[in-house]
């Protein structure tokens, strides 16, 4: 696979949003970040705030382009990736 850079829109909800301190950011991870799981690891290494948000990795869920997604989902340039805790609506 071509190692293209990927400008992504990353969204955070609920306590992930509170910990990161922003609800949305545009980021271009390095080419070796191919999946949602790899993106989470990379984000966690950015700074203390991101580290805090992704500390409890097994309670973090995600969506890619407004669809629930697995950690193994491969990302494409321009994707909207959202991270959030398990949903509690209804």
């Amino acid at each position, binding site marked *: 696979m071509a190692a293209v850079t990927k400008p992504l829109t990353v969204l955070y909800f609920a306590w992930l*949003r509170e910990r990161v301190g922003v609800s949305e950011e545009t980021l271009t991870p390095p080419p070796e970040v191919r999946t949602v799981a790899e993106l989470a690891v990379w984000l966690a290494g950015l700074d203390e705030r991101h580290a805090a948000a992704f500390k409890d990795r097994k309670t973090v869920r995600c969506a890619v382009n407004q669809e629930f997604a697995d950690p193994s989902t491969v990302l494409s340039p321009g994707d909207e990736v*959202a991270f959030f805790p*398990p*949903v509690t609506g*209804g």
Partner: protein
Amino acid sequence: MAKILVQTGDFDVGAEIAVLTAGRTDIGGLGCFVGIVREDKAHDAPDRPIQALTLEHYPAMTARAIGRIVEEAERRWSLLGCTVIHRVGRMLPGENIVLVATAAPHRQAALDSTAFLIDWLKTKAPFWKREELPDGAGAWVEARAEDDAAAARW
């Protein structure tokens, strides 16, 4: 055919049911569920009643996610009408949070699809509840294993 709304304002249960059934003679049963803010003890502070609940959601995704859940209900049951209204924002104890109503030729389809929709809304739609405590502190409600179990029955 389904009516799906995500809104900050309240809804009128009687009016929504009236719309579902108006002018029809093919409906045999109508099922309905209303979720209401309960003045409960906070999850992590059992001595303090919650003051309010705030519902956060993922605006670009919410209506689509609810639409998928409704489509699944329509695949499973013969529905003649379906309304889902989910509020977002800040709500006080006693206020409505969510309405699910379905109309069907027979009662079992109406009852089952209503239960299915609320179970799936709780586990497959991007909403997050935050409890507001008396001192202004807040706590995000944690997902409950029993909600996943309820949704997994279907």
